[in-house]
């Protein structure tokens, strides 16, 4: 017999007739490809079954049926309108039908404009380099630029989606949306960017739409749809919040505090150790009880953001120093100053790789690399810099976006990083990084 995928699949489900089964079993003895495929099919199912789904609170399930019944009551009420109204409606039905269509079109057009406006405000800029710069430099292949455009497009699509679906947010005036921070003047922008994330999120502007999709949020949503206040009263909300706050918050916060966060490894550890599950942050390797509430979650995100920014800054500074052929000790390096644009040409050979005793505190891994010698230390350093850029900024983005897709928290964090990179990466640094990237490419070839 010929190899037949459908037979293999049906065999796995015990649905083959006796004679087909016999034929297939005979075939499997000689056909390794089919035997392997059969195993793969079984494995796919086994692996798929391990994919977890979110666990929801008891309160959610207890309220579920009531919410269904409330919605049903509303629909029923809407259906049973007075007889005179029905007569009136039927009289105007053809017209209202047309009106409804015209109305829908108008609403769609309106929403499109609003979404476009929203899109302009919220369009995401990936952190590393501007496409224009990349294109002008001609040093980055088009694939990367395209990928960026795509991601912008996708984000824009997402934003549009948010605009269309979560009509509640659209109803808010623009200034009440957290993203409105972006549309302020540059000076205010810088100020906004310097506000710690947690606090930024806690500002009145951000409060409403930054709610995680908790039970309270579901209740609010229902409320908005329904327009009454059967659910989601203040008392209930408070109760839910109380439920969310766990006794382990302190433990988890201490855990984060304890992490020595001054070097690359600790940031990685921080990222590895933290997962977000069912709206709450979980410290990996601890019991399920160690869920963390939203405040701690914000503080972790804030910490991750500031760590990534701090580390990135150090690397940029180091790169610039190295460019000038000066390696200063960790003690000499003023950590708060902004990186100055490189004015001199790269002095590759003059960067002394030795005398590690005074430099080990800063970035041990990089020093080690440089002290090995051989390759151009600037290139070696640049490579590490490039990598760390990817790790810290990329990894950080990855962390945020994987766990907080579509959420305002992720958007805020992204915005802050973008702002930072725009501010901190001066043109000359950026160009230098592009040069280095090109040199690295040549080197790899």
């Amino acid at each position: 017999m010929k190899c037949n995928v459908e037979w293999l699949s049906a065999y796995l489900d015990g649905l083959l007739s006796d004679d087909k089964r016999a034929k297939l079993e005979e075939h499997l003895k000689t056909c390794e490809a089919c035997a392997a495929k059969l195993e793969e099919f079984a494995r796919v199912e086994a692996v798929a079954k391990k994919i977890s789904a979110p666990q929801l609170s008891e309160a959610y399930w207890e309220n579920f049926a009531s919410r269904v019944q409330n919605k049903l009551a509303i629909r029923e009420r809407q259906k049973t309108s007075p007889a005179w109204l029905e007569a009136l409606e039927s009289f105007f039905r053809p017209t209202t039908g047309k009106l409804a269509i015209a109305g829908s079109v108008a609403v769609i057009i309106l929403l499109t404009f609003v979404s476009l406006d929203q899109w302009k405000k919220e369009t995401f800029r990936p952190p590393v380099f501007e496409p224009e710069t990349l294109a002008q430099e001609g040093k980055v292949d088009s694939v990367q630029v395209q990928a960026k455009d795509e991601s912008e497009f996708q984000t824009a699509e997402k934003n549009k989606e948010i605009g269309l679906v979560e009509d509640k947010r659209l109803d808010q005036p623009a200034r009440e949306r957290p993203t409105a921070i972006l549309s302020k003047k540059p000076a205010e922008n810088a100020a906004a960017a310097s506000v710690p994330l947690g606090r930024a999120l806690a500002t009145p502007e951000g409060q409403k739409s930054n709610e995680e999709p908790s039970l309270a949020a579901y209740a609010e949503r229902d409320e908005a749809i329904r327009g009454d206040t059967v659910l989601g009263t203040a008392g209930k909300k408070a109760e839910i919040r109380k439920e969310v706050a766990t006794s382990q918050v302190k433990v988890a916060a201490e855990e984060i505090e304890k992490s020595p966060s001054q070097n690359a490894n600790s940031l990685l550890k921080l990222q590895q150790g933290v997962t977000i599950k069912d709206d709450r942050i979980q410290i990996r390797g601890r019991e399920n009880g160690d869920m963390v509430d939203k405040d701690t979650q914000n503080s972790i995100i804030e910490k991750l953001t500031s760590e990534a920014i701090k580390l990135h800054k150090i690397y940029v500074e180091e790169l610039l120093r190295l460019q000038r052929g000066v390696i200063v000790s960790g003690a000499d390096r003023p950590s708060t100053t902004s990186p100055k644009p490189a004015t001199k040409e790269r002095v590759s050979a003059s960067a002394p790789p030795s005398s590690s005793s005074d430099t080990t505190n800063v970035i041990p891994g990089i020093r080690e690399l440089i002290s090995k010698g051989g390759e151009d230390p600037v290139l070696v350093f640049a490579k590490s810099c490039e990598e760390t850029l990817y790790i810290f900024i990329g990894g950080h983005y990855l962390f945020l976006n994987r766990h907080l897709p579509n959420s305002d928290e992720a958007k805020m964090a992204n915005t802050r990083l973008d702002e930072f990179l725009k501010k901190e990466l001066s043109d000359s640094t950026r160009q230098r990084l592009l040069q280095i990237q090109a040199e690295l490419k040549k080197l790899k070839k």
Partner: protein
Amino acid sequence: MRMENATDSELIAKAKAGNENAFRQLVVRYQKKIFYLAYRMTKDKDAADDLAQETFIRTYQALGRFKENYPFYTYVYRICMNLSINYHRRQKLTLYESRTENWEQMLEQQGIFPESISTAEEKNLTKLEGEIDRLSPDYKAVVVLKFYENLSCEEIARTLEIPLGTVLSRLARARQKLAQALTKKEAADEV
């Protein structure tokens, strides 16, 4: 007789007669199943919540047409799956491959994304989850009912109101696609 102990058909009969508690009991009985079914289809908690709620509303509204000799779950699953498939079509999910995937890819290509961040098994899970998510809604529906609801192919055919042969061919193709993704990924990891 207590509502909790009543059979589905007893509850349906009462619900049809206007007993709200009986219907409530049916909701409570199936709410988790339906929510997770919708979640597996959409991968979005909010959407799953909406779809699950809508499923029961539609169930109630069409109770009069329900034939009592059919199993209730087939009926309510069907409504949920139809709503989920429609939701999928509306969303055009292919557009929404998040940009995080670009980062992940970039990090992996650079060999930078540390192995320790996710173990090989976690990677497999993530990969497979993504692949299932990318299946077209019709195929995904079969996979979800088979893998997560453990329905037999005949039950799937009844639930989705499609011929058994269609279920079998969709399942075979989906399995092949998922298996390919899994092995391709592993081969890439080894290199």
